[in-house]
Structure formats: structure tokens, C-alpha cells
């Protein structure tokens, strides 16, 4: 297993040949706010307002398959929501993980459905279970829970059992 590179500078130096990092740095010099290479997995933190552009850049750079969009709630830390994207390149056989950090007050960021139509259900799931809004999503409705459900159950302040 390759050695872990835990800060942005080390990742940029250690993985200078990585196609994803090269493409993103060339197209959006200030998009990557943090980077980590741990347990052979590359994680890039992208400025939330540039996520759609970054995804489009990655798509044209050969990372053509969106595997997953999900979210992690870091309550009570701020920014609270970490929206996570896993993007795969079928050609390079390489995977990159993007993070976009979202504030807890009116959490929202740009939808990537215009880039990958497959993000549709994933973003609906994140909206349903975490309450993060995706601007520009074609039909942002609840997907797992009934429409009249109150609250977003995968948030950390939502109890696992009992009444609220």
C-alpha cells in the first residue's frame, strides 16, 4: 500500500502525474481547497460553488463514470455537511473522491445532473435523508420517505429510535 499523503502540498507533489489533479489545477486553480491521499484513495476537497464546473472538467479529462453521491453530517462542526462524490474513470481504472463542504444554514449547492444524469436519484436521496438542496435539479422530491415526512433522518441530531 502506497504511503499516505496527508496535506495538499504533499499530494500535489507526490501525485503530480495524476490526471484528475492536473486537469483540475489547470482549469480551476483555486478549486481544490484541500487534498488527501490515504489508504490508496485520493480525496479532493472542492470549493462548493465550483463543484459543477469541477465535475465537468473531470468528465472531459476521462473520469467518465459517476459512481455515487452521498453526504456525511459532521454536526455540530461547521461547515456541517460534507457532500461526497465518487467518480471513476473506466479508461484509467482510477477513482477520485470529491468533497464539497456545505454550511448548516440553508444547505444547498449546485446539482450535477446536467453533467451526469445518473446524479438524479443520488441527489434526491441526499435531499431526502440529509436536507441538502441541489440547485438546478430537475425534480428534487423525497425518494425514500413519504412526501409528508418531517425532518431528515440521517442527520446526526435525528434520533435512531424513540420519539423526538
Amino acid at each position, binding site marked *: *500500500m502506497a504511503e499516505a499523503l496527508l496535506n495538499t502540498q504533499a499530494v500535489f507533489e507526490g501525485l503530480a502525474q495524476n490526471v484528475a489533479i492536473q486537469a483540475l489545477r489547470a482549469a480551476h486553480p483555486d478549486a481544490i481547497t484541500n487534498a488527501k491521499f*490515504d*489508504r490508496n*484513495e485520493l*480525496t479532493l476537497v472542492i470549493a462548493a460553488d465550483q463543484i459543477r464546473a469541477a465535475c465537468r472538467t473531470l468528465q472531459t479529462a476521462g473520469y*467518465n*463514470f*459517476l*459512481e*455515487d453521491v*452521498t453526504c*456525511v*453530517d459532521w454536526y455540530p462542526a461547521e461547515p456541517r455537511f460534507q457532500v*461526497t462524490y*465518487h467518480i471513476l474513470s*473506466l479508461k484509467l*481504472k482510477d*477513482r477520485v*473522491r470529491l468533497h464539497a463542504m456545505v454550511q448548516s444554514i440553508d444547505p444547498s449547492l449546485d446539482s450535477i445532473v446536467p453533467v*451526469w*444524469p*445518473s446524479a*438524479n*436519484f443520488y441527489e434526491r436521496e441526499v435531499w431526502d*435523508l440529509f436536507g441538502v438542496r441541489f440547485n438546478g435539479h430537475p425534480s428534487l*422530491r*423525497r*425518494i*425514500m*420517505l*413519504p*412526501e*409528508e415526512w418531517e425532518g431528515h*433522518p*440521517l442527520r446526526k441530531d*435525528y434520533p*435512531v*429510535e424513540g420519539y423526538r
Partner: protein
Amino acid sequence: MSEFDNQHSPENQHAPEIPGFTETSTLVVPRPEEGSKDHTMVLNMGPQHPSTHGVLRVVLEIDGETVVKLVPDIGYLHTGIEKTCEAKFYQQVVPLTDRIDYLCPMTNNLAYCLAIEKLLQLEIPERAQWMRVLLNELTRLNSHLVWLGTHAMDIGALTVFLYTFREREEILRIFEHVSGQRMMTSYFRIGGLALDPPLDFFSSVRALVKILPEKIDEYENLLTGNPIFIGRLKNVGFLTANDAIALGVTGPPLRASGVDWDLRRDMPYSSYEKFRFEVPVSNDGDVWARYIVRLREMRESVKICQQALDGMPEGPIKADAPHVVLPEREKMKTQMEALIYHFKIVTEGFQVPAGEVYQAVESPRGEMGYYAVSDGTAKPYRVHMRNPSFATLQALETMCVGRLIADVVAVIGSIDIVLGEIDR
């Protein structure tokens, strides 16, 4: 206008106005009539429809028999497994993973265990890795047998179901023999396997693997040359390679659309790189191509099982990590240290270093991925499952629009849907 008419007028079709509320039965609003012949109607298919393989609801807008629009409605089986995982110790999550996809429990066990082992950076002994491969391929055969039986039954070929379930029963017997359970096996543990395989395990698998190729020939005799079956499957439910990639389709439907991608070969895990097998690909992209790809996959799975049986290494089945893996029963009764470790793992769990991993495996339906986040405690901070059917369901509309309602049934069968895994 009578009271009855008034209730069904378009103004009253919408649900009461609650902010953020959309009544799903009005997702598809029929277009205004354009003359007496040219109009569409909305048909609700499921959640109790037998061809939806569980509780999938599909809202169809149809023009005569032709599908104009299709909206899948899911969530009927949602049980909040991801939330439950956050309240359990790492080892207690394993039985939950079985219940996500009840047709391939071992694949889920494997994906979860590999993810946590990656977080812990554990080395798994070779024998455990090979056993995992062997059982995963048996699981794939099990799942494909259920698919073949139910898919053929949807089309109207009832006989095949009885044949495939005969062989599936043999596989379930093997699972029961090795793990004590027929379906929810929970046989894999973080760090290896739960138990040593019983003495006659390998001989019974050998006997099964020996008869399977001729049984697959038998199914093909019933279906592959059958003109009705061909007529229902060929040139139905097209999906191009570009659409498949854009819509997140994985597994056999992706390969049937001409994309040569299999995680077992392209991003190997659990020593799949030591096995030789072919990845069946077809360029047709229709329901028939998916049928052919899956049948050829079953033959390849039999080959992998054969190789695993022939080359099964000797050695331990659990990693040497006393703080993670439960000690042997005998050691626990004789050694103080083993007893303490056992007590601590059972009562407090084990701590996993902080970090995040994503581990994907090739399940019978496509890419099954587990995203696990640890904050350094004994309970996972977040476990997310990336499920193949969930993504593939988004391609349903692309495949069905412009076709007949009967083709929707064929297409749902061909994507081999499991609702437990979609809803979680």
C-alpha cells in the same frame, strides 16, 4: 355536472397544498385530449404487481399500449439501514448487510468487510480470501438462477423456474452447511471468516460444480432457441453504451451495452487477480443481450469455482489481529488473555482508526460499493451503500419509452431488480 364528475376533474386531482409536498399519483398528468382518438392515460403499475419483483411502483403514461413516459416510485422497503449502522459496533453491522440484497448476501458481507479491513489495514490470510471468492461465485450463481427463473416466468415460460430453483436449492444447502443459514448467511467477519468450512464442504461444492454446466445447457435448451422467448426479448429495451455510462448502469446491463468493465478483473479485490476468467460482453444492448451475457457469466462463475476448489490454499481463516478477530473457542477457555480480548470485543467493540474508504465489488447486479467513514470510535460514523439496482433503475425510462407495456415487464426482468437493495 354531477358530483362524481367534479371529483375527477383536473382541478381536484392535485393533493392539498402542503409546502414541499408532491402527491406521487399525480407525477404524471395526462395531456389534454387532442381529438377523440389521440389521448394518453396514466396507469399505475405496482407496488403489488408480480413482475416488479417486490415493491416497485411504476407510473406509466400510455398512448394505447405504447409507453410515453415512465416514473419509478421507490421507498416502500426503506428501513433506514444506514442509520441503524451508525448505532452498532463495526462487527454488528455484518448481519445488516445481508438484508440489503437478499439474493447475494455474501457479496454484501464481502464489500463491507473489505471496506473495514481497508480502514484497519488488515492482512487477510490467503485461504480466507479464496474461500470468499468461492462463496461469492456460488452467490452469483444463486442470484443468476433466481433471475433466470423469474425473468423467464415474467415472459411466460413457467417451466424454467422449477429447473433453476432445483439447482438453487443445492446451493442454499451448501450455504446452510457452511454457515448455518440458507439465505442470511453473515458468514464473513472483519478479518476473515466466521468458521472453518466443514470437512465435506469441498466435496459437496465439487459435486455441484460438476453438474452445473450441463444444467445451464438444459436451461438454454428450454429458452435460447424458443421462438416466443426470442420474440419477446430481441430488439427490446435498447440502451446505448453512452446512455448506460451517463445513467450509472453497471454490471451485466452495462456489459450487454458493449462496455467491457468488470471490477473483478479491472480493480481486483480478495485475490481475484489470481483467477482466470473471461468477461462476457455484447454490443446489442437489448434484453436478449443481457440474457446472453448473464448466462455466459454463469459459465464463467463455474470456472472460477473450479479454480478455487483446485487451488484452495491451506492455512488460517482469520487474520492475526487479536484486538479485532474473536479468539478460538479453545483458547478462550484456557488462556486468560484470549478471554479478555473476547470480552472486550463483544462488550466494547474495537476501535477503527479515523478515515474514510470506498470499496466496490462486482455483485451479480453490478457495482456494489460501501463507503465507510470512521471517527476513531468503535461505531461507524457513516456507512453508505452504493447499490447497483438503484442506479440501473434510472435507465428504465430510457429503455421503455416508445415500447409496449409488455416490454416494460421484460425490461424490469432484464435489469434483475432487487428492491431491498434499492430502498435499504
